[in-house]
């Protein structure tokens, strides 16, 4: 049975993910956790604020997970993103996959996060000491 977990949450608990992806048919689990970095191009970030068009974001996340399951024959997959205000070093996104052999889950994991960044309607505002900026809004 393939299990997909697709969620938008207030806070990410990274300690859950092993049990969520653990699977008798899998020989490996690969997980990527995105976190808040303190410096962007030399400027100190105070916090990040995420917002989403939730209905559409969940649909897009589900499409990414479904594509990955088919392409890499995954047993379990997770895409979970946090919204709201996040402080330096906090987790903001977690993606992961379990599969029979490790190559599949490594490749799938990279695809999950790279595609999420391209297509999922979630927006991040970087708050600095004296200004705040919507990331990637302008060329």
């Amino acid at each position, binding site marked *: 049975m393939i299990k997909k977990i697709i969620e938008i949450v207030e806070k990410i608990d990274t300690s859950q993910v092993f049990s969520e992806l653990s699977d008798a048919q899998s020989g490996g689990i690969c997980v990527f956790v995105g976190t808040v970095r303190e410096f962007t191009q030399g400027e100190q970030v105070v916090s990040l604020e*995420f917002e989403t*068009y939730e209905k559409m974001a969940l649909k897009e996340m589900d499409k990414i997970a479904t594509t990955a399951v088919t392409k890499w024959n995954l047993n379990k997959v997770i895409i979970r993103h946090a919204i709201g205000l996040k402080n330096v070093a906090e987790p903001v*996104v977690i993606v992961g996959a379990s599969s029979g052999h490790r190559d599949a889950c490594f490749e799938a994991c990279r695809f999950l996060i790279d595609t999420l960044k391209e*297509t999922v309607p979630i*927006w991040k505002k970087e708050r600095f000491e004296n200004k705040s900026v919507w990331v*990637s809004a302008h060329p």
Partner: protein
Amino acid sequence: MEILLFGIAKDIVGQAQLRFSATEETPTSVGALKTMIGEKYPEFTKLSSLAIAVNSEYAEDDVSLNRNDEIAIIPPVSGG
């Protein structure tokens, strides 16, 4: 017709939704909507990209718009 706004689109317009009253002329396609908002709010033309979602799916410029559709402006996304 109501158009949902997110991220920088909300800041550009100054509110979370763009409303067209029943008597106002509404855009009939995704392309027409993009042109209209670019003329009304030139800041939209300075963005890295601008997408429109119709009923929570990305929509190409030739997709037509109906008053009952859920329409959203999708400025450059930056999740992760």
